[in-house]
Protein backbone atom coordinates (compact mmCIF):
# COMPACT_ATOMS: atom_id res chain seq x y z
CA UNK A 1 0.00 0.00 0.00
CA UNK A 2 1.63 3.13 -1.13
CA UNK A 3 1.68 6.12 1.11
CA UNK A 4 0.46 8.86 -1.15
CA UNK A 5 -3.16 7.87 -1.34
CA UNK A 6 -5.70 9.79 0.60
CA UNK A 7 -8.46 8.38 2.73
CA UNK A 8 -11.90 8.93 1.31
CA UNK A 9 -15.16 10.05 2.81
CA UNK A 10 -18.09 7.88 1.95
CA UNK A 11 -21.80 8.26 2.69
CA UNK A 12 -22.72 6.17 5.64
CA UNK A 13 -25.38 4.22 3.84
CA UNK A 14 -22.88 2.59 1.55
CA UNK A 15 -20.72 1.17 4.32
CA UNK A 16 -22.35 -1.21 6.75
CA UNK A 17 -20.55 -1.37 10.11
CA UNK A 18 -17.61 0.76 9.12
CA UNK A 19 -14.67 0.27 11.48
CA UNK A 20 -13.99 3.21 13.74
CA UNK A 21 -10.72 5.01 13.78
CA UNK A 22 -8.00 3.77 16.11
CA UNK A 23 -9.48 0.34 16.62
CA UNK A 24 -6.16 -1.05 17.79
CA UNK A 25 -6.43 -2.84 21.14
CA UNK A 26 -3.11 -1.48 22.37
CA UNK A 27 -4.18 2.11 22.04
CA UNK A 28 -4.70 3.99 25.24
CA UNK A 29 -8.45 4.36 25.69
CA UNK A 30 -8.41 8.04 26.58
CA UNK A 31 -6.44 8.89 23.52
CA UNK A 32 -8.69 6.73 21.41
CA UNK A 33 -11.70 8.50 22.78
CA UNK A 34 -10.15 11.87 22.09
CA UNK A 35 -9.38 10.78 18.56
CA UNK A 36 -12.84 9.42 18.04
CA UNK A 37 -14.33 12.56 19.46
CA UNK A 38 -12.34 14.82 17.28
CA UNK A 39 -13.01 12.75 14.23
CA UNK A 40 -16.69 12.59 15.06
CA UNK A 41 -16.75 16.36 15.42
CA UNK A 42 -14.98 16.65 12.11
CA UNK A 43 -17.32 14.19 10.44
CA UNK A 44 -20.41 15.90 11.66
CA UNK A 45 -19.34 19.35 10.64
CA UNK A 46 -18.08 18.18 7.31
CA UNK A 47 -21.29 16.25 6.67
CA UNK A 48 -23.38 19.25 7.57
CA UNK A 49 -21.35 21.51 5.36
CA UNK A 50 -21.42 19.03 2.49
CA UNK A 51 -25.14 18.47 2.90
CA UNK A 52 -25.83 22.18 3.02
CA UNK A 53 -23.75 22.81 -0.07
CA UNK A 54 -25.22 19.92 -1.97
CA UNK A 55 -28.84 20.48 -1.16
CA UNK A 56 -28.71 24.09 -2.24
CA UNK A 57 -26.97 23.53 -5.54
CA UNK A 58 -28.72 20.58 -7.10
CA UNK A 59 -27.84 20.30 -10.75
CA UNK A 60 -30.63 18.37 -12.34
CA UNK A 61 -30.84 16.22 -15.41
CA UNK A 62 -34.42 16.27 -16.73
CA UNK A 63 -35.17 12.94 -18.39
CA UNK A 64 -38.38 14.21 -19.95
CA UNK A 65 -40.38 11.63 -21.85
CA UNK A 66 -44.02 12.63 -21.63
CA UNK A 67 -46.65 15.20 -20.76
CA UNK A 68 -45.26 15.73 -17.25
CA UNK A 69 -42.70 17.85 -19.04
CA UNK A 70 -45.28 20.62 -19.14
CA UNK A 71 -45.52 20.69 -15.39
CA UNK A 72 -41.77 20.43 -15.19
CA UNK A 73 -41.53 23.57 -17.30
CA UNK A 74 -44.07 25.23 -15.07
CA UNK A 75 -42.09 24.33 -11.97
CA UNK A 76 -38.99 25.67 -13.64
CA UNK A 77 -40.50 28.91 -14.82
CA UNK A 78 -41.06 32.18 -13.03
CA UNK A 79 -44.29 31.67 -11.12
CA UNK A 80 -43.21 28.57 -9.20
CA UNK A 81 -39.52 29.10 -9.72
CA UNK A 82 -37.61 26.06 -8.59
CA UNK A 83 -34.56 28.35 -8.52
CA UNK A 84 -35.64 29.47 -5.08
CA UNK A 85 -34.48 26.08 -3.86
CA UNK A 86 -31.25 26.08 -5.78
CA UNK A 87 -32.26 23.52 -8.37
CA UNK A 88 -32.65 25.84 -11.30
CA UNK A 89 -29.74 24.56 -13.29
CA UNK A 90 -30.53 21.76 -15.73
CA UNK A 91 -27.41 20.09 -17.03
CA UNK A 92 -28.02 18.22 -20.23
CA UNK A 93 -25.10 15.97 -19.63
CA UNK A 94 -25.62 13.33 -16.95
CA UNK A 95 -21.96 13.56 -16.05
CA UNK A 96 -22.51 17.02 -14.60
CA UNK A 97 -25.80 16.33 -12.87
CA UNK A 98 -26.68 15.46 -9.28
CA UNK A 99 -30.37 14.81 -9.58
CA UNK A 100 -31.98 12.66 -12.25
CA UNK A 101 -35.57 13.75 -12.72
CA UNK A 102 -37.54 11.06 -14.50
CA UNK A 103 -40.34 13.14 -15.95
CA UNK A 104 -42.89 10.93 -17.64
CA UNK A 105 -43.63 7.41 -18.73
CA UNK A 106 -40.75 5.01 -19.05
CA UNK A 107 -41.36 2.31 -21.59
CA UNK A 108 -39.38 -0.85 -22.03
CA UNK A 109 -37.55 0.42 -25.07
CA UNK A 110 -36.17 3.35 -23.05
CA UNK A 111 -34.87 1.36 -20.11
CA UNK A 112 -31.37 0.75 -21.54
CA UNK A 113 -31.06 4.48 -22.14
CA UNK A 114 -32.33 5.38 -18.69
CA UNK A 115 -29.99 2.92 -17.03
CA UNK A 116 -27.07 4.21 -19.03
CA UNK A 117 -27.89 7.81 -18.14
CA UNK A 118 -28.06 6.86 -14.47
CA UNK A 119 -24.77 4.98 -14.65
CA UNK A 120 -23.10 7.96 -16.29
CA UNK A 121 -23.99 10.28 -13.43
CA UNK A 122 -21.26 10.80 -10.90
CA UNK A 123 -21.67 10.16 -7.20
CA UNK A 124 -23.33 11.54 -5.21
CA UNK A 125 -26.52 11.24 -7.22
CA UNK A 126 -30.21 11.23 -6.48
CA UNK A 127 -33.26 10.28 -8.48
CA UNK A 128 -36.72 11.79 -8.43
CA UNK A 129 -39.67 9.99 -10.01
CA UNK A 130 -41.77 12.84 -11.35
CA UNK A 131 -45.39 11.88 -11.78
CA UNK A 132 -47.30 8.69 -11.35
CA UNK A 133 -46.03 7.04 -14.53
CA UNK A 134 -42.42 7.25 -13.45
CA UNK A 135 -43.40 6.17 -9.94
CA UNK A 136 -45.54 3.14 -10.71
CA UNK A 137 -46.36 2.99 -14.39
CA UNK A 138 -49.59 4.88 -13.83
CA UNK A 139 -52.52 3.65 -15.82
CA UNK A 140 -50.25 2.30 -18.52
CA UNK A 141 -50.49 -1.30 -17.40
CA UNK A 142 -49.53 -2.74 -20.74
CA UNK A 143 -46.89 -4.60 -22.71
CA UNK A 144 -44.76 -1.56 -23.47
CA UNK A 145 -44.51 0.29 -20.15
CA UNK A 146 -42.20 -0.25 -17.22
CA UNK A 147 -44.23 -0.38 -14.01
CA UNK A 148 -42.24 2.29 -12.23
CA UNK A 149 -38.73 3.54 -12.87
CA UNK A 150 -37.55 1.95 -9.62
CA UNK A 151 -37.76 -1.43 -11.27
CA UNK A 152 -34.68 -0.36 -13.19
CA UNK A 153 -32.81 2.22 -11.08
CA UNK A 154 -33.11 3.24 -7.42
CA UNK A 155 -35.39 6.20 -6.73
CA UNK A 156 -35.13 8.58 -3.77
CA UNK A 157 -38.28 10.66 -4.02
CA UNK A 158 -41.63 9.83 -5.60
CA UNK A 159 -43.82 12.74 -6.62
CA UNK A 160 -47.35 11.52 -7.32
CA UNK A 161 -49.83 13.19 -9.61
CA UNK A 162 -50.90 12.99 -13.20
CA UNK A 163 -49.23 15.34 -13.76
CA UNK A 164 -48.08 16.64 -10.36
CA UNK A 165 -48.70 20.26 -9.62
CA UNK A 166 -45.58 22.40 -9.27
CA UNK A 167 -46.22 22.69 -5.53
CA UNK A 168 -45.93 18.93 -5.28
CA UNK A 169 -42.68 19.02 -7.19
CA UNK A 170 -41.30 21.66 -4.87
CA UNK A 171 -42.46 19.60 -1.90
CA UNK A 172 -40.68 16.57 -3.31
CA UNK A 173 -37.59 18.66 -3.83
CA UNK A 174 -37.66 19.83 -0.23
CA UNK A 175 -38.01 16.26 0.98
CA UNK A 176 -34.99 15.39 -1.10
CA UNK A 177 -33.14 18.37 0.35
CA UNK A 178 -33.85 17.07 3.84
CA UNK A 179 -32.52 13.70 2.82
CA UNK A 180 -29.36 15.24 1.43
CA UNK A 181 -28.86 17.42 4.49
CA UNK A 182 -29.22 14.48 6.84
CA UNK A 183 -26.70 12.30 5.08
CA UNK A 184 -23.79 11.39 7.33
CA UNK A 185 -20.30 10.82 6.09
CA UNK A 186 -17.76 8.80 7.96
CA UNK A 187 -13.98 9.00 7.86
CA UNK A 188 -12.54 5.70 6.82
CA UNK A 189 -9.13 4.42 7.69
CA UNK A 190 -9.30 1.12 5.87
CA UNK A 191 -10.59 2.33 2.60
CA UNK A 192 -8.51 4.54 0.39
CA UNK A 193 -9.14 6.41 -2.77
CA UNK A 194 -8.44 4.61 -6.03
CA UNK A 195 -4.80 4.66 -6.97
CA UNK A 196 -3.95 7.44 -9.36
CA UNK A 197 -0.76 7.14 -11.29
CA UNK A 198 1.34 10.18 -10.52
CA UNK A 199 4.83 11.08 -11.44
CA UNK A 200 7.51 11.02 -8.75
CA UNK A 201 7.54 14.77 -8.21
CA UNK A 202 3.82 14.83 -7.68
CA UNK A 203 4.09 11.96 -5.25
CA UNK A 204 6.69 13.85 -3.21
CA UNK A 205 4.56 16.95 -3.25
CA UNK A 206 1.61 14.95 -2.08
CA UNK A 207 3.56 13.36 0.74
CA UNK A 208 4.84 16.76 1.78
CA UNK A 209 1.42 18.36 1.81
CA UNK A 210 -0.71 15.69 3.30
CA UNK A 211 -4.20 16.67 4.10
CA UNK A 212 -5.43 17.43 7.55
CA UNK A 213 -7.45 14.26 7.57
CA UNK A 214 -4.54 12.24 6.31
CA UNK A 215 -2.34 13.50 9.13
CA UNK A 216 -5.10 12.92 11.60
CA UNK A 217 -5.44 9.33 10.57
CA UNK A 218 -1.72 8.81 10.42
CA UNK A 219 -1.79 7.79 6.83
Amino acid at each position, binding site marked *: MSDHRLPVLKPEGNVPESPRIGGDENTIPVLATRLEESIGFFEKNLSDALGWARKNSIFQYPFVTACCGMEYMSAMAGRYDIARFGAEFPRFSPRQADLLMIVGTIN*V*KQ*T*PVLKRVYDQMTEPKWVMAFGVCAS*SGGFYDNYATV*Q*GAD*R*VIPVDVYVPGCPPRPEQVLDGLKILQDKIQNQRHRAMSKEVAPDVRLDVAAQRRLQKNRSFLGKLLGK
Partner: protein
Amino acid sequence: MSQALIDLVREKFPEAVVSSHSHRGDEVVTVKRENLVEVIGFLRNDPQTDLKLLRQIAGVDLLTYKTEMTGGAALASIEAPAYEMQRKPRVEPRYYVSYNLYSITKHHSLRVRVELRSDDVKVPSITSLYRTADWWERYVYDMFGVEFTGHPNLTRILMYPEFQGFPLRKDYPVRKRQPLVPELDFPDLVRGPGPGPGGAGVPMSQTHVGRQNVDPSTYD
Protein backbone atom coordinates in the same frame (compact mmCIF):
# COMPACT_ATOMS: atom_id res chain seq x y z
CA MET B 1 -72.86 10.75 -50.93
CA SER B 2 -70.10 8.55 -52.18
CA GLN B 3 -72.05 5.36 -52.53
CA ALA B 4 -70.96 6.15 -56.07
CA LEU B 5 -67.43 5.06 -55.14
CA ILE B 6 -68.60 1.61 -54.10
CA ASP B 7 -70.72 1.33 -57.21
CA LEU B 8 -67.72 2.28 -59.31
CA VAL B 9 -65.55 -0.36 -57.72
CA ARG B 10 -68.29 -2.95 -58.14
CA GLU B 11 -68.67 -1.99 -61.75
CA LYS B 12 -64.95 -2.10 -62.51
CA PHE B 13 -64.09 -5.19 -60.50
CA PRO B 14 -67.25 -7.26 -60.23
CA GLU B 15 -65.43 -10.41 -59.15
CA ALA B 16 -63.09 -8.67 -56.68
CA VAL B 17 -65.62 -7.20 -54.28
CA VAL B 18 -66.64 -9.51 -51.47
CA SER B 19 -68.99 -7.15 -49.69
CA SER B 20 -69.56 -3.48 -49.08
CA HIS B 21 -71.02 -1.26 -46.46
CA SER B 22 -72.14 2.34 -46.40
CA HIS B 23 -73.39 4.35 -43.48
CA ARG B 24 -73.59 8.13 -43.38
CA GLY B 25 -70.67 8.77 -45.63
CA ASP B 26 -68.55 5.97 -44.21
CA GLU B 27 -67.93 3.67 -47.12
CA VAL B 28 -66.27 0.31 -46.80
CA VAL B 29 -65.58 -2.12 -49.55
CA THR B 30 -64.14 -5.55 -48.84
CA VAL B 31 -62.09 -6.96 -51.66
CA LYS B 32 -60.31 -10.20 -52.32
CA ARG B 33 -56.65 -10.31 -51.51
CA GLU B 34 -55.63 -11.21 -55.04
CA ASN B 35 -57.18 -8.02 -56.40
CA LEU B 36 -56.10 -5.65 -53.67
CA VAL B 37 -53.19 -3.93 -55.43
CA GLU B 38 -55.21 -3.71 -58.61
CA VAL B 39 -58.20 -2.13 -56.89
CA ILE B 40 -56.20 0.35 -54.85
CA GLY B 41 -54.12 1.26 -57.89
CA PHE B 42 -57.29 2.02 -59.76
CA LEU B 43 -58.69 4.08 -56.90
CA ARG B 44 -55.50 6.08 -56.70
CA ASN B 45 -54.99 6.80 -60.39
CA ASP B 46 -58.50 7.11 -61.76
CA PRO B 47 -59.46 10.81 -62.13
CA GLN B 48 -62.99 10.05 -60.95
CA THR B 49 -61.89 8.66 -57.61
CA ASP B 50 -58.48 10.33 -57.20
CA LEU B 51 -57.80 8.84 -53.77
CA LYS B 52 -54.26 10.12 -53.58
CA LEU B 53 -53.90 10.18 -49.82
CA LEU B 54 -53.44 7.02 -47.79
CA ARG B 55 -54.54 8.14 -44.36
CA GLN B 56 -54.00 4.94 -42.49
CA ILE B 57 -53.54 1.22 -42.67
CA ALA B 58 -55.12 -0.50 -39.70
CA GLY B 59 -55.07 -4.08 -38.57
CA VAL B 60 -57.93 -5.72 -36.75
CA ASP B 61 -57.89 -8.98 -34.83
CA LEU B 62 -61.39 -10.36 -34.25
CA LEU B 63 -60.52 -13.67 -32.55
CA THR B 64 -63.84 -14.33 -30.77
CA TYR B 65 -65.41 -10.96 -31.32
CA LYS B 66 -68.58 -11.95 -33.07
CA THR B 67 -69.87 -14.12 -30.28
CA GLU B 68 -69.20 -12.15 -27.14
CA MET B 69 -66.69 -9.80 -25.62
CA THR B 70 -65.11 -10.75 -22.34
CA GLY B 71 -62.66 -8.95 -20.15
CA GLY B 72 -62.55 -8.84 -16.38
CA ALA B 73 -61.84 -12.46 -15.56
CA ALA B 74 -58.91 -12.64 -17.92
CA LEU B 75 -57.40 -9.44 -16.58
CA ALA B 76 -57.04 -10.87 -13.08
CA SER B 77 -54.84 -13.68 -14.27
CA ILE B 78 -51.41 -13.08 -15.67
CA GLU B 79 -51.15 -16.18 -17.75
CA ALA B 80 -54.57 -16.34 -19.29
CA PRO B 81 -55.06 -14.73 -22.65
CA ALA B 82 -57.30 -11.75 -22.90
CA TYR B 83 -60.16 -13.81 -24.24
CA GLU B 84 -61.13 -17.20 -22.98
CA MET B 85 -60.56 -19.03 -26.17
CA GLN B 86 -61.55 -22.43 -24.89
CA ARG B 87 -65.18 -21.52 -24.42
CA LYS B 88 -65.70 -19.16 -27.28
CA PRO B 89 -65.62 -20.18 -30.90
CA ARG B 90 -63.05 -18.42 -32.98
CA VAL B 91 -63.92 -16.26 -35.91
CA GLU B 92 -62.57 -16.98 -39.34
CA PRO B 93 -61.31 -15.02 -41.15
CA ARG B 94 -59.69 -13.77 -38.00
CA TYR B 95 -57.87 -10.64 -39.19
CA TYR B 96 -58.56 -7.88 -41.54
CA VAL B 97 -56.41 -5.06 -42.81
CA SER B 98 -58.12 -1.79 -43.55
CA TYR B 99 -56.82 0.87 -45.94
CA ASN B 100 -58.19 4.32 -45.28
CA LEU B 101 -58.07 6.34 -48.50
CA TYR B 102 -58.94 9.97 -48.99
CA SER B 103 -59.14 12.33 -51.93
CA ILE B 104 -57.83 15.82 -51.35
CA THR B 105 -59.41 17.18 -54.52
CA LYS B 106 -62.81 15.44 -54.33
CA HIS B 107 -63.14 15.38 -50.52
CA HIS B 108 -64.39 11.86 -50.35
CA SER B 109 -62.96 8.82 -48.67
CA LEU B 110 -63.19 5.09 -48.95
CA ARG B 111 -62.02 2.25 -46.81
CA VAL B 112 -60.76 -0.85 -48.54
CA ARG B 113 -60.70 -3.94 -46.43
CA VAL B 114 -58.99 -7.30 -46.88
CA GLU B 115 -59.94 -10.28 -44.78
CA LEU B 116 -57.26 -12.73 -43.72
CA ARG B 117 -57.50 -16.24 -42.37
CA SER B 118 -55.33 -17.04 -39.38
CA ASP B 119 -53.39 -19.76 -41.21
CA ASP B 120 -52.28 -17.40 -43.98
CA VAL B 121 -51.67 -13.89 -42.66
CA LYS B 122 -50.23 -12.35 -45.78
CA VAL B 123 -51.14 -9.32 -47.84
CA PRO B 124 -49.46 -7.91 -50.94
CA SER B 125 -47.67 -4.66 -50.16
CA ILE B 126 -48.87 -1.40 -51.69
CA THR B 127 -45.61 0.45 -51.15
CA SER B 128 -45.33 0.73 -54.93
CA LEU B 129 -48.46 2.90 -54.92
CA TYR B 130 -48.11 4.93 -51.73
CA ARG B 131 -44.78 5.74 -50.17
CA THR B 132 -46.43 6.27 -46.80
CA ALA B 133 -47.57 2.67 -46.87
CA ASP B 134 -44.01 1.71 -45.95
CA TRP B 135 -44.28 2.70 -42.30
CA TRP B 136 -47.97 1.86 -41.98
CA GLU B 137 -47.34 -1.68 -43.14
CA ARG B 138 -44.42 -1.99 -40.75
CA TYR B 139 -46.73 -0.81 -38.01
CA VAL B 140 -49.40 -3.40 -38.82
CA TYR B 141 -46.71 -6.06 -39.04
CA ASP B 142 -45.31 -4.98 -35.67
CA MET B 143 -48.63 -5.03 -33.86
CA PHE B 144 -50.51 -7.83 -35.62
CA GLY B 145 -47.91 -9.91 -37.40
CA VAL B 146 -49.43 -9.43 -40.81
CA GLU B 147 -46.84 -10.18 -43.44
CA PHE B 148 -46.78 -7.75 -46.35
CA THR B 149 -45.23 -9.55 -49.29
CA GLY B 150 -43.06 -7.32 -51.42
CA HIS B 151 -42.37 -4.79 -48.68
CA PRO B 152 -38.79 -3.42 -48.95
CA ASN B 153 -38.00 -3.53 -45.24
CA LEU B 154 -40.55 -5.36 -43.15
CA THR B 155 -39.17 -4.97 -39.63
CA ARG B 156 -40.58 -3.80 -36.34
CA ILE B 157 -41.17 -0.07 -36.15
CA LEU B 158 -42.42 0.58 -32.61
CA MET B 159 -41.39 -2.37 -30.49
CA TYR B 160 -37.78 -3.35 -29.91
CA PRO B 161 -36.34 -6.09 -32.10
CA GLU B 162 -36.06 -8.51 -29.18
CA PHE B 163 -39.80 -8.44 -28.63
CA GLN B 164 -41.50 -11.79 -29.08
CA GLY B 165 -45.00 -12.02 -30.44
CA PHE B 166 -47.39 -9.33 -31.58
CA PRO B 167 -48.85 -7.24 -28.78
CA LEU B 168 -52.17 -6.18 -30.31
CA ARG B 169 -53.20 -9.70 -31.17
CA LYS B 170 -56.02 -10.62 -28.86
CA ASP B 171 -54.34 -13.81 -27.72
CA TYR B 172 -51.27 -11.94 -26.50
CA PRO B 173 -51.35 -12.23 -22.68
CA VAL B 174 -52.57 -8.94 -21.29
CA ARG B 175 -50.06 -8.73 -18.48
CA LYS B 176 -47.06 -10.24 -20.17
CA ARG B 177 -43.84 -8.22 -19.88
CA GLN B 178 -40.63 -8.51 -21.82
CA PRO B 179 -38.06 -6.28 -20.10
CA LEU B 180 -34.86 -5.31 -21.83
CA VAL B 181 -32.75 -4.78 -18.73
CA PRO B 182 -33.08 -6.85 -15.55
CA GLU B 183 -35.89 -5.43 -13.45
CA LEU B 184 -36.69 -5.72 -9.80
CA ASP B 185 -39.87 -7.58 -8.98
CA PHE B 186 -42.22 -5.95 -6.50
CA PRO B 187 -44.95 -8.03 -4.92
CA ASP B 188 -47.31 -5.19 -5.49
CA LEU B 189 -50.99 -5.54 -6.26
CA VAL B 190 -51.40 -1.93 -7.25
CA ARG B 191 -48.78 -1.89 -9.90
CA GLY B 192 -48.65 -3.95 -12.99
CA PRO B 193 -46.63 -7.13 -13.08
CA GLY B 194 -42.89 -7.16 -13.16
CA PRO B 195 -40.61 -9.85 -14.45
CA GLY B 196 -41.72 -12.41 -11.88
CA PRO B 197 -42.49 -16.03 -12.64
CA GLY B 198 -45.98 -15.15 -13.75
CA GLY B 199 -45.08 -12.04 -15.70
CA ALA B 200 -42.51 -12.11 -18.39
CA GLY B 201 -40.73 -14.95 -16.66
CA VAL B 202 -37.01 -14.63 -16.40
CA PRO B 203 -35.72 -11.27 -17.61
CA MET B 204 -35.22 -11.41 -21.29
CA SER B 205 -31.64 -10.24 -21.16
CA GLN B 206 -30.63 -13.43 -19.42
CA THR B 207 -32.29 -16.25 -21.22
CA HIS B 208 -34.40 -15.19 -24.06
CA VAL B 209 -33.72 -16.40 -27.55
CA GLY B 210 -34.72 -13.00 -28.80
CA ARG B 211 -31.37 -11.55 -27.86
CA GLN B 212 -29.29 -13.82 -30.02
CA ASN B 213 -28.84 -11.35 -32.81
CA VAL B 214 -28.27 -8.37 -30.53
CA ASP B 215 -24.95 -7.33 -29.11
CA PRO B 216 -25.36 -7.71 -25.33
CA SER B 217 -22.86 -4.97 -24.62
CA THR B 218 -25.26 -2.39 -26.00
CA TYR B 219 -27.59 -2.93 -23.03
CA ASP B 220 -27.20 -3.14 -19.28
